[in-house]
């Protein structure tokens, strides 16, 4: 067991409880409390980081691990601004891309020129920006048109898969645990969504979780000691593409079906693909033992 019981309680359950209870209170007091989610998820992740990965320092680029912590706070602030000011889509994309590209640049700059060339870094910044924007557009769009449990279930599934890939596939248990903290936060979201149908996870919740998950993945990809095989690269590509399967819930055939059917149609294909990714990751790990 990589962590003590106290670390598990404070790193996993405390952030989830904080997000669940504070968000429930905010949605009871306000007609629209989406602005609470960004900072809450960021603070929850910060608490998890503090308990599971108590390595924090200044400046943020002194150790790329610190970046995970500071980036989460920045993502939370951006999400709160997004919820309060409701900028147009194009401006949201521009702001998100600026924050993301800055974070990835700080993350990768230490690897230049030893492991990656300057032009290679630029290419990876572009590619990761594209993937992150696709994730965000898919999940944020889903959060807009499908309130309820769909988005937190989808995010919990993605976070769980990222946790397995990081901890078992790429041998970074601390990052896996941080992704696990996001799973717990998403479970809190599922509970909220199940009990209060009017809660929306757009403009804050989905964006913050997506950004943190993506940065955990990028950090893991570049800082693991593993040399990823072609098969592993294929599985991680499948993981990155998996949110697109949620569009299956929007096929015309399902329009007249019940809400439960549509949730299942959106979530189940993603879950099946991610289960395959996790199974392959565990099999590779056991094979190396």
């Amino acid at each position, binding site marked *: *067991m*990589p*962590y*003590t019981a106290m*670390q598990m309680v404070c790193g996993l359950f405390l952030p989830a409880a904080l997000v669940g209870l504070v968000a429930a209170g905010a949605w009871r007091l306000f007609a629209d409390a989406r602005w609470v989610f960004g900072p809450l998820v960021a603070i929850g992740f910060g608490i998890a980081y503090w308990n599971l*990965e*108590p*390595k924090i320092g200044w400046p943020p680029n*002194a*150790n*790329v*691990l610190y970046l995970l912590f500071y980036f989460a706070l920045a993502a939370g602030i951006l999400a709160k601004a997004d919820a309060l000011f409701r900028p147009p889509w194009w401006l949201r994309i521009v702001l998100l891309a600026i924050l993301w590209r800055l974070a990835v640049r700080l993350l990768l700059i*230490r*690897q230049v020129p*030893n*492991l990656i060339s300057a032009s290679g870094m630029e290419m990876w910044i572009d590619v990761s920006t594209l993937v992150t924007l696709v994730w965000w557009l898919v999940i944020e769009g889903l959060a807009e048109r499908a309130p309820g449990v769909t988005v937190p279930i989808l995010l919990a599934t993605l976070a769980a898969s990222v946790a397995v890939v990081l901890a078992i596939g*790429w*041998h*970074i*248990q*601390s*990052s896996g645990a941080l992704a696990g903290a996001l799973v717990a936060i998403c479970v809190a979201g599922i509970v909220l969504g199940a009990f209060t149908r009017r809660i929306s996870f757009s403009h804050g919740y989905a964006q913050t979780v997506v950004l943190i998950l993506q940065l955990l993945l990028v*950090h*893991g990809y*570049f*800082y*693991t*000691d*593993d040399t990823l095989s072609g098969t592993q690269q294929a599985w991680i590509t499948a993981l990155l593409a998996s949110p697109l399967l949620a569009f299956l819930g929007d096929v015309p055939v399902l329009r007249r079906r019940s809400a439960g059917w549509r949730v299942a149609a959106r979530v189940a294909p993603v879950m099946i693909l991610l289960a395959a990714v996790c199974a392959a990751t565990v099999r590779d*790990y056991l094979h*190396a*033992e």
Partner: protein
Amino acid sequence: MNRSLALWGGFTLALAFVFSSAALADDLKADPVHSFVVFDVHHFGAGYVYGTFGGPTGAVGYDSTDLTKTSFDLSVDTASIETRNENRDKDLKGPDYFDVKQFPTMTFKSTSVTKTGDQTMAVTGDLTVRGVTKSITVPIEITGTGTMMGKTRTGFRADFKIDRRDYGMVIHPEPVIGNDVHIVVAIEAVQQ
């Protein structure tokens, strides 16, 4: 004029003193083939896990007549860690432990030496691991001198413990993995 001459004379004497005392310390170079870094750490409060790093490289300034003038400036390639298990080695090289891509070396640079016996000394220096620098004092023993292919070799052996948490390695708290890591550094340094 006389005052100026006296100043120059004093300066020359001071320089001569500095260089003569420096010349007493032999410049040795650690031979990585015959140098070792071995560590062990308690596992679940039961047995011990052993591991090695590739031999350290760097310089040793050795003065057999005055051990306090001895100096060490050593570097170890963190990616060379090996514990005879592939998964464990990947864990150790990853961001949870040595984070070798971000911190490819760990270093020790001595700052002062105290003689503790004919062949022993206490060496204080800066140990940098994972970007964290801490001053530690290490007992070092001179294990002998020999000649190989016409070059004099001197052996040094350090045996000490560090707390891994001081260097940011906080995952797997005790009793899973002991906090204290016992380290033996054995260096064979060759005269240049």
